[in-house]
């Protein structure tokens, strides 16, 4: 292959230039300024603060407030619209001259119920504030060796009222209590011992933006610096207040981003002049209200009891097995002994107010195929008053009729005065309560036995007597 002279010269020049460039990579020039690496700012709570306003004037004592849902608020600082970003049970302040309150219920996109009425009346467009504060954990790795220098973090602040304790739409509020600053790490040649961090509100301006300044000065040579962590604020102390939405068009889940600056500066001899700087981004997100509703349910169960089982202290005859819808006394009904049989009722509900079970009968036990005395009367017990709501002792078979009593098996569903120790009572045509949640509220498997008792007189005509008992379970309102 033949190459022209010119081409060979050109390739030679290119080769030499490449070699010089390669050599320059082997011996790079040390820069005076560089970027800090691995810079981040983690917020313990990255939710935007809420700063909305009232719609209309609100009188003192009002506990239901209406929020402005307009995208053009009366006060341009109040950029949270409606109640979408509020949470139940969070602290809220209605107007600057009122104490804090609690959000009890969020009724609609604009209506919020507070736990207490507002102390002082508020005019239309008065601010409504729910602050979100966060501890900032800023991490970075220095690259320069600076003896007895300082690390400084700048967090954007608003240009006005940036330390009044109310959220601002264009920066973090310093709060009324200065956040504590502390630093860790830095390696063996950087020591933060004995040097406390400082926090200064809106102390630094870069271009047109103002920043809160947080600084940790250190002792040591600063050689071979390692990662540094700066904490701004403490969980129980002063913290920066997150901004409110930058505009009224924010929707749940949308973030506003802010640029913070991490700096590595000289020490006091050079007036803490800045050396290295890296910019980072903080994302603050509009709240997403997640609600999980456990739907209330009610379950009601009736089941039979086995032959010879003991219910309410009485043995069920060996010939009688009850089912969920029949109590077949059969031939156990006599004139000289009680026929006792039972059923089991079970109720569960997670309804807040609990439940109630009532019972009523269709009629007295009645035989349709007899003419004389076709009914077994409802129990009259052996003491008075023996009514559908008041049980009485019934131990003598001289007192005829059909009645019932109750036994608590699980929970406290039966009123103490209605338990079998206090005797029996008749069913009535009007429903009366037999079980209820005690204490009122959700229950898991309240169980009670209903124990039926019948004894007939010697003149009771033979026949098949029957009635039906209706149990109704409802949740309390």
């Amino acid at each position, binding site marked *: 292959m033949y190459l022209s002279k010119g081409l060979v010269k050109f390739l030679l020049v290119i080769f030499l230039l490449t070699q010089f460039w390669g050599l320059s990579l082997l011996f790079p020039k040390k820069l005076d300024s560089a970027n800090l690496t691995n810079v981040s700012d983690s917020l313990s709570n990255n939710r935007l603060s809420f700063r909305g306003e009232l719609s209309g004037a609100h009188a003192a*004592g009002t*506990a*239901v407030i209406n929020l402005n849902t307009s995208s053009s608020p009366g006060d341009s600082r109040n950029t949270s619209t409606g109640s979408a970003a509020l949470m139940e049970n969070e602290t809220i302040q209605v107007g600057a001259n009122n104490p804090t309150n609690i959000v009890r219920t969020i009724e609609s996109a604009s209506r919020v*119920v507070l*736990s*207490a*009425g507002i102390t002082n009346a508020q005019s239309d467009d008065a601010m409504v504030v729910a602050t979100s504060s966060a501890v900032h954990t800023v991490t970075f790795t220095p690259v320069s060796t600076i003896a007895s220098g300082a690390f400084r973090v700048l967090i954007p602040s608003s240009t006005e009222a940036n330390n009044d304790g109310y959220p601002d739409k264009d920066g973090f509020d310093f709060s009324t209590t200065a956040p504590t600053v502390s630093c860790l790490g830095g390696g063996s040649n950087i020591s933060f011992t004995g040097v406390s961090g400082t926090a200064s509100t809106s102390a630094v301006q870069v271009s047109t933006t103002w920043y809160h300044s947080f600084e940790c000065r250190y002792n040591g040579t600063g050689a071979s610096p390692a990662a540094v962590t700066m904490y701004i604020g403490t969980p129980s102390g002063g913290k920066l207040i997150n901004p409110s939405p930058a505009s009224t068009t924010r929707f749940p889940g949308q973030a506003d981003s802010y640029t913070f600056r991490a700096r590595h500066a000289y020490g006091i001899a050079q007036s803490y002049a800045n050396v290295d700087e890296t910019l980072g981004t903080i994302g603050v997100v509009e709240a997403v209200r997640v609600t999980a509703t456990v*739907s*209330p*349910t*009610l*379950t*009601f*169960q*009736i*089941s*039979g009891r086995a032959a010879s089982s003991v219910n309410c202290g009485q043995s069920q005859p060996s010939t009688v097995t009850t*089912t*969920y*819808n*029949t109590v*077949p*006394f*059969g*031939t156990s009904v006599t004139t000289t002994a009680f026929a006792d049989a039972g*059923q089991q009722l*079970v109720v569960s*509900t997670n*309804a*807040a*107010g*609990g439940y*109630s079970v009532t019972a*009523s009968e*269709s009629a007295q*036990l009645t035989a349709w195929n007899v003419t004389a005395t076709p009914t077994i009367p409802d129990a009259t017990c052996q003491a008075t008053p023996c009514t559908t709501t008041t049980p009485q002792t019934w131990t003598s078979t001289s007192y005829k009729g*059909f009645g019932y009593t109750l036994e608590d098996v699980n929970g406290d569903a039966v009123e103490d005065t209605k338990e079998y120790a206090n005797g029996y009572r008749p069913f009535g*045509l*009007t*429903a009366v*309560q037999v079980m*209820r949640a005690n*204490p*009122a*509220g959700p229950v898991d498997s309240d169980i009670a036995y209903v124990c*039926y008792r*019948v004894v007939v007189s010697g003149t009771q005509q033979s026949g*098949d*007597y*029957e009635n*039906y*008992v*209706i*149990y*109704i*379970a*409802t*949740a*309390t*309102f």
Partner: protein
Amino acid sequence: MTKFQFTNKSQFSNPKHFKLFSVWFLVFGICLVFGAWFLVIPAKAQTLSLGLWPPILEVIIMPGKSITQAYTITNSGEETIINTKILPFEPSGEHGNISLGGPTSTEVGPLQNEPQFSFDNANLSLGKPFRLRSGEVAQVILKIRIPENCPEDDYYDTLLFNTPPGAKIGQSVSRQAGTIGANILLTVSKDGKPLKKGEILEFGLQRRLLCIGKGVSLTCLIDSLDPLEFLLRVKNTGRAFFKPFGEISVGGLLGQKGEIEILPENILSQASRQINGQCQTEEKIYPCPLTWQPKFLFGPYQARAEIKVADSGSAINGHTSLNFLALPFKLSLTVIVAILGLILIKNRLRIRT
């Protein structure tokens, strides 16, 4: 090679073979029995077991509008027939219980200007029975239509799912019918802002030694060691049900302070309700007595019931304050008895000596 010959015992060529066969047979038999035991389908006891969601529905609706609500009924028991009906109810007592019209009540909705109920299901109609198999979950779509001329008022009804009583069995029998119901609290209002107001009927102490005076001048005497439990009854004097909210604040002359938050529970129109306190765990909010439990009560106190209507925020007035004096009667009595006992013992000892 071992070989089984399935013939008479005497025909096993080797007694060892017979022994081995016996062991195999035994193992096989045991496996068979256990297998059968595990394969047996568990018998389900005869049970009526119905579940209902939601058990309560609260609606504010304008005349001329209609809404639908899906109810889920679950049958965890035997296959059964379900019948449906809607009955009006009234509050029974002051604890949120209901009293249905009773067996003789007619179904609601016969009047043209009252709320009308129907099912929106293609295959189900209100008042007509349907079969619900064991384990089946049925969804019933209840439609509530409010006629244009329906008066602005509250309407309280219960949607009932009945099962039929057991069959006649040719002997003396009491038959049972199980019913599960869902309450419906309906407020018909043209502007969505019905008149909601209430009045405190009674504000007192559950355990007290003595009370004198009436109304705002009511003053009670209690023992310092007794628990302080308040009784608060509120009547709904408006036209629509509401939930009260607020607290009872207690203050003592010696600077003691306490607050008891009340539980927002429905008070139906023209009915009264005994108010519960609000207790809370991580899992649930539940009613509890209106109790304040300081370490030791002493001196004069004043309690104030600061209650409001949830939606309107209007204050519920009436007997809102209560004065009481706590003194250590039981403790004093114990000390006096102890001193007298000591004096008695001392005197006895002196007489002996």
